[in-house]
């Protein structure tokens, strides 16, 4: 039973990890929390659902199109809600702007898609038995998509010029400019990449629970944010690690203690870890040298 819970935890943890990366990467370059991240995810999931249900777009194309839409929406949010005020370095204004954007997107979704819950089921849901553990086709899909996405992201961040530029921006925007880096483009790209992954995660989670609704981003976003904080916000490996930890703890807690407190376990663990390590598990410790 333990391994079954562990497996379930890793699966949902992968989703949290993909969403957490968006929070962490944006925080890395701009030191702001993009509160609209989870709502951008929700919007993308709706688009995916509409593409699949009404336009009967093939699954792979649907995922790619919806994720691309999510990426563009994520970049638009940065352009409209953050870029005009971030230069003034007003952290509080950015925070309010982010919360406003989040509410706006939720209300817009209610207006356009209605406030009810829509069904979304396009993947294989047959259950298989492997080594005494039950796993569904959907779960296998989530695991493999998560693995592929994380691998692509890893290569992009650590092996490409764009990745080096992103990491340089997260150290210092001004110094990145001195290297000839168009920092606005990199910031925009960071929002895009984060939102793309959130779009994929949204479609997976929407199918996992067979539900898409305007406030679906709320709890998912909070947990992913907890994962990002737990791992050390701004740290890419931290976000992935944090996502899996939150997923596993939630699953074990629900299985062995009580499923009624499923959501409480994640936050409890986050609080405990932050008391011991305020910068998060893999959070940056700054060394200043003259």
């Amino acid at each position, binding site marked *: 039973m333990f391994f079954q819970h562990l497996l379930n935890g890793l699966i949902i943890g992968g989703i949290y990890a993909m969403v957490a990366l968006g929070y962490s990467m944006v925080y890395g370059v701009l030191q702001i929390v993009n509160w609209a991240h989870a709502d951008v995810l929700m919007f993308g999931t709706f688009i995916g659902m509409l593409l699949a249900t009404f336009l009967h777009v093939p699954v792979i194309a649907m995922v790619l199109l919806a994720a691309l839409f999510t990426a563009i929406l994520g970049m638009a949010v940065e352009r409209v809600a953050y870029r005009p005020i971030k230069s003034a370095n007003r952290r509080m204004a950015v925070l309010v702007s982010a919360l406003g954007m989040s509410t706006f997107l939720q209300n817009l979704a209610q207006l356009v898609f209605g406030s009810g819950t829509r069904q979304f089921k396009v993947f294989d849901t047959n259950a298989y038995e492997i080594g005494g553990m039950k796993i569904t086709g959907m779960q296998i899909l989530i695991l493999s998509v998560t693995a592929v996405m994380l691998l692509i992201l890893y290569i992009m961040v650590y092996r490409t*010029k764009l990745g*080096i*530029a992103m*990491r340089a921006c997260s*150290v*210092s925007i001004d110094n990145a*400019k*001195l290297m000839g880096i*168009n920092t606005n483009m990199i910031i925009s790209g960071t929002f895009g990449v984060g939102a793309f992954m959130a779009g994929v995660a949204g479609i997976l989670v929407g199918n996992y629970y067979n539900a898409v609704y305007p406030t679906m981003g709320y709890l998912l976003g909070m947990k992913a944010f907890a994962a990002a904080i737990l791992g050390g916000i701004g740290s890419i490996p931290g976000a992935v690690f944090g996502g899996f930890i939150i997923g596993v703890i939630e699953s074990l807690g629900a299985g062995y203690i009580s499923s009624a407190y499923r959501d409480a376990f994640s936050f409890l663990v986050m609080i405990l870890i932050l008391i011991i390590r305020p910068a998060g598990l893999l959070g940056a410790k700054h060394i200043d040298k*003259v």
Partner: protein
Amino acid sequence: MGKILEVKDLSVNYGVVPALRDISFHVDEGEVVALIGPNGAGKTTTMHTISKLIKPKSGEILYCGKSIVNEEPHNLVSMGISQVPEGRGIFQPLTVAENIEIGAYLRKDKEGIKRDKEWVYDLFPRLRERMKQISGTLSGGELQMLAMARALMARPKLLLLDEPSMGLAPVIVEDIFHIIKKINKDQHTTILLVEQNAQMALTASTRAYIIEVGQIIREGSSKELKSDDQIQKSYLGL
């Protein structure tokens, strides 16, 4: 030789506080020019204004005869201006090799980049030994070398150096200035140098400007300034 950089009547304010008042100076092609002054004189402000991180209140900055006052900071590198900022501005979580790589961010010529990497590693052999290291683990002198190597990777026509001697042991400072002269001689890179260490700056430069409380108070050839009584008293401690 033509003027590569010309600053005319430049004024900069921080809020209502004036930091630079109508300063004018120029750098000819192939020169090493030093801007010397004490803490708070406006040296770094001048550098940041040239590299466009700060917007001036008034005045003009010409690079190769063309105004760059309204240029975006990231465009300057492709125009041929590289800066080693105050405090080096090394991306410390990145490795030494990655920092060098990012200096060539805008270049597309793979072969040339490879050649220049070899060249900067030859110029700073210490960096070659530490290529794979996270740059946050380097010593102050090594960080300064890395910052210079990184700036050189952009193949600049004009290199701006902001306090290369800051916080370094005298023997390392000597090394650094030796390399500055070498870069100017071998690569014909024009260098504008901002320094508190007047002794070193006057030795390495051809001409110098003395800046105090946001104004240029003296200018001349470095030789002449070095033997000037007043300069010796206030800046060289002789």
